[in-house]
């Protein structure tokens, strides 16, 4: 098998046994990028020269029999809203087109310390606002399983690149489903960690109380290995939590006996496509067969999660994006005659339509006369949703749901109707509102041969339990063989 198609676990062993070199592996990944990137368009920028330098350094260390971290020499792609010193970080926006960060995000420092090889920066919806990757200023990423369809969003590049083997693993970010929905659409695994588990320092802010960085990969073991790298308290992020997670590879155990799994009926109702519903219910049966108990339950506030999310996230976005003023960094209009017109024109020319809509919605819900009715109310409902989940987790260990109401849709299908696009997030936003961890892995395909994902949710800091459940499912069901897109040829 070509090296670029293999998983980090397999490659890591081969590197350490000196069967391959990191330079060979990195070249193999870049060869594949060269072959298919014009079809998939996952990357905003490539980092080939630096990547090969990094790979060479790892190879030297291996030759000297130095002790190396498990993921040393493994090629990783990074979503373009995570700051990389010396590599442009655009957030897929015109306003940050030439932004060259003077510092690394904490997760990037950790990636460097663990000697992974950065392949490049991945496409996304502008400022992570969107569910299809179509809101990127630069390009539209395609779904590797069907090139006329979207890869999901906002981490569309992160999911498509992993699916198309244009990197071995990747990092995305998730504010309302931005890791999970694209993972589901592209047939890869994606983890949204507990809020505060992974440092947000250097992640370009969208909605700070909801944003979280997480890993995407082609199997559960790789997710565990990459989670070991990125999790942990960071003094540079005041919302980062001082909680010691155990080595996630210890959770790679095939055992769900006695696990109590809840199926919230609100997530299987109207609007959810039958093929998605059936695939996830089939998964529940599989967990039952493996010794878990499965029971229907109710999360009554589910329908209020979407409005709550759009109020809170847009309010925070309107405040966070006030910094783009054409003065300190980023795009500046050429057409201004005073400071006020400099601000106005810079922002109007620099932001795309969706970003403008969210800034305006956020400004509206925070404005005088509407603050109580919208923002304050949404905060109270947020607390009610948290309580709803806390009550559920007194009875259940894991909650199992669909990820998205449907599978990957056609490019252009939902671009004219923002509300239709927002409904894509209906199964995922409540998790961010409650600060919970959630894990998506593939569980089947629909009649068009498009991947379907399932979402496993647990209480805060039980991220390891999600890894165990996902791993057990993966071991019992050969999910990965059918998730390799046909554009890569036979596996």
């Amino acid at each position, binding site marked *: 098998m070509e090296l670029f198609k293999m998983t980090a676990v397999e490659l890591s062993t081969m590197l350490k046994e000196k069967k391959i070199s990191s330079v060979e592996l990195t070249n193999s990944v870049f060869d594949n990028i060269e072959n298919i990137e014009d079809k998939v368009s996952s990357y905003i920028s490539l980092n080939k020269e630096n990547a090969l330098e990094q790979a060479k350094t790892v190879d030297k260390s291996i030759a000297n029999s130095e002790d190396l971290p498990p993921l040393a020499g493994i090629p990783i792609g990074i979503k373009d809203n995570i700051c990389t010193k010396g590599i442009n970080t655009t957030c897929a926006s015109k306003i940050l087109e030439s932004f060259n960060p003077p510092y690394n995000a904490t997760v990037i420092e950790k990636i460097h310390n663990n000697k992974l090889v950065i392949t490049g920066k991945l496409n996304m919806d502008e400022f992570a606002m969107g569910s299809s990757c179509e809101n990127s200023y630069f390009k539209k990423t395609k779904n590797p399983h069907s090139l006329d369809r979207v890869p999901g969003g906002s981490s569309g590049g992160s999911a498509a690149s992993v699916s198309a083997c244009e990197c071995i693993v990747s990092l995305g970010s998730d504010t309302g489903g931005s890791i999970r929905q694209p993972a589901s659409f592209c047939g890869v695994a994606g983890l949204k960690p507990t809020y505060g588990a992974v440092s947000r320092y250097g992640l370009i802010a969208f909605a700070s109380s909801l944003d979280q960085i997480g890993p995407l990969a082609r199997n559960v073991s790789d997710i565990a290995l990459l989670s070991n790298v990125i999790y942990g308290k960071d003094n540079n992020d005041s919302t980062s939590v001082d909680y010691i997670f155990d080595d996630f590879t210890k959770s790679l155990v095939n055992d769900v006996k006695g696990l109590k799994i809840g199926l919230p009926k609100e997530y299987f109702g109207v609007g959810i496509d039958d093929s998605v519903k059936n695939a996830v219910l089939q998964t529940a049966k599989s967990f039952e067969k493996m010794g878990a108990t499965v029971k229907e339950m109710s999360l009554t506030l589910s329908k209020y999660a979407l409005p709550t999310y759009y109020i809170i996230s847009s309010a925070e976005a309107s405040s966070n994006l006030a910094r783009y003023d054409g003065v300190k960094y980023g795009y500046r209009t050429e057409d201004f005659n005073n400071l006020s017109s400099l601000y106005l024109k810079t*922002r109007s020319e620099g932001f795309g339509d969706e970003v403008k809509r969210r800034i305006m*919605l956020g400004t509206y819900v925070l404005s005088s006369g509407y603050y109580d009715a919208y923002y304050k109310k949404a905060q109270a409902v947020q607390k009610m949703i948290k309580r709803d989940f806390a009550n559920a987790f007194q009875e259940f260990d894991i909650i199992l749901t669909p990820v998205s109401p449907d599978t990957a849709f056609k490019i252009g299908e939902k671009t004219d109707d923002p*509300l239709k696009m927002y409904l894509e997030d209906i199964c995922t936003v409540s998790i961010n509102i409650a600060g919970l961890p959630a894990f998506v892995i593939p569980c089947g395909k629909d009649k068009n041969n498009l991947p379907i994902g399932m979402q496993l949710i647990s209480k805060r800091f039980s991220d390891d339990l999600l890894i165990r459940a996902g791993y057990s499912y993966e071991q019992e069901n050969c999910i990965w063989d059918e998730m390799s897109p046909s554009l890569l040829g036979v596996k």
Partner: protein
Amino acid sequence: MSITNKEISHIAKLSMLQIDEGHFDKLAKDMNAIVKMVDSLQELNIDEDLNKFTIEGNQNIFRQDEVKPSFPREEIIKNAPEKKAGCFFVPKIVE
């Protein structure tokens, strides 16, 4: 609740965004649909017991206010669209 064209113009002004005339109607339509969606929260009553529910570990984290090395000036200013004499350059503000 619906949002009037006058309100949209006001919000755009507060947001420091200029809406092109040709885009205004579409924006107004979209904003109204979105506001209608978020308005569904109004039907939900906040129960009085909510204050009794506390979220574990939900407290502010403080650190010592210590002086630490920061970034070199050239590094910070390198991304500025216009700079002069090591400073960010803006149009004249005070007459």
